[in-house]
């Protein structure tokens, strides 16, 4: 038992020593934990401004996007165009769907399939082409159709292409976007007086022509209409308010 007590004291001593060793390890562990926590804290504090700095220096990292939109409805001229004339087309709706300001340019290009002559790009004049459009903003761009004197008659089909020129560089690749809507109109013959006139003008001209033909036909037929006036009895009222006897 004593021996065991010696053993026990030995155990005790050993246990004490062990306890002391544990304390040292624990304190070392705690100190290490403190150091690790401090390092993590510094990293966390530095990470936020560093990330912001990187995003400012390289904005594409913030998922920058470029985008452009155009009205889905075709651009149409509702009258038949006459060679040698110019017409105001309905303004085209364009929108910047990207996350950065863009220079919007427009051009005419045949992309759509279908019957119809291709519109020569020089026939369409854009007002405000090359405008700066902020992100998520839209605008309406007026167009003018200038049909040259020698234009061939018939239906014309092309596309109004809206290009976002704020291309994003991917290495040595620029990424661009564009959207297109149809452009449709018809050109009449140069000798046709009618196609350039509005419908009510045509109706008036038609009515006048009809009247002229009717008058001419009446004269040619030799018919005569005599218009005679009978004296009005009321003119013979005397000054006394009575009637003169007839």
């Amino acid at each position, binding site marked *: 038992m004593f021996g065991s007590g010696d053993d026990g004291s030995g155990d005790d001593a050993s246990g004490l020593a062990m306890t002391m060793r544990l304390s040292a390890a624990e304190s070392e562990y705690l100190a290490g934990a403190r150091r690790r926590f401090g390092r993590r804290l510094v990293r966390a504090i530095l990470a936020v401004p560093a990330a912001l700095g990187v995003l400012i220096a390289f904005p594409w990292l913030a*998922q920058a996007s470029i*985008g452009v939109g155009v009205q889905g409805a075709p651009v149409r001229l509702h009258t038949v165009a006459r060679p040698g004339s110019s017409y105001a087309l309905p303004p085209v709706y364009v929108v910047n769907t990207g996350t950065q300001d863009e220079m919007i340019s427009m051009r005419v290009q045949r992309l759509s399939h279908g019957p119809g002559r291709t519109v020569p790009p020089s026939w369409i004049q854009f007002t405000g082409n090359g405008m700066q459009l902020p992100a998520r903003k839209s605008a309406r761009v007026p167009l003018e159709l200038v049909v040259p004197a020698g234009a061939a008659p018939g239906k014309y089909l092309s*596309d109004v292409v809206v290009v976002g020129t704020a291309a994003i560089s991917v290495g040595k690749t*620029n990424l661009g976007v564009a*959207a297109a809507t149809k452009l449709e109109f018809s050109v009449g013959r140069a000798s046709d007086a009618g196609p350039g006139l509005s419908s009510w003008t045509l109706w008036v001209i038609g009515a006048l022509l009809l009247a002229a033909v009717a008058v001419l036909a009446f004269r040619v037929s030799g018919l005569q209409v005599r218009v005679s006036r009978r004296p009005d009895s009321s003119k013979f009222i005397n000054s006394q308010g009575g009637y003169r006897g007839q």
Partner: protein
Amino acid sequence: MVSRVWAVLIVGILAIGGIGVVNKAAHTTTIPGGSTNATVNVLPTTRSITVSPGQVTFSDCHRGQRPYHSTSTLLGQPNGECSVGTLGTHGTYPITIDNAGIPSNIEVSASNAVPADNGTRWRLCSTHGHPACTGPRGAPGVDQYKARTTARGELNATPLTASPACDFVFDASGGCRAARGQLRHEGIKLIGPTRFSDNSTSFTITITWIAVAP
């Protein structure tokens, strides 16, 4: 006669009272701030497209021959290859194309490659189109390059041409019809010339996605 007068009076009083009630009710409904604004959101009527790049460099370069064998980020010759994204079954396709508007056909085109000194450009060529690639086995020849867009699982990549052509990534059936709001992730593969004439160390190409009427 007297009863008729009473009847007229009663009707008159009732009418005046009724007008008063209606007037009060009308006053009650015109309480300041009692109006309500309601906003209804509608489907977009615009045709639009948005491109978001998720990666900024051509990488994964390989091929070429000594002393011009490609490095990981530099295109070698002859016919070195580089890509944006790591292409393949488990690859990454970093460029997002979003058909944000009405259903449209998505087409894509590319420009010639312009050297930094604005010297001799690399012409975009095509294996089956015009201008044809003049290198061996349909590879780009001298001062030519070809490129294609591709996406995961896509069997037929879209060879890029100078004029807009269907981006097959959007329609597995062989077209390029994109539904409203449909987006795709794409990568780009580029094959360089057999030989460069220009000594510039960088060339720039422009790839444009365009949404057109179906």
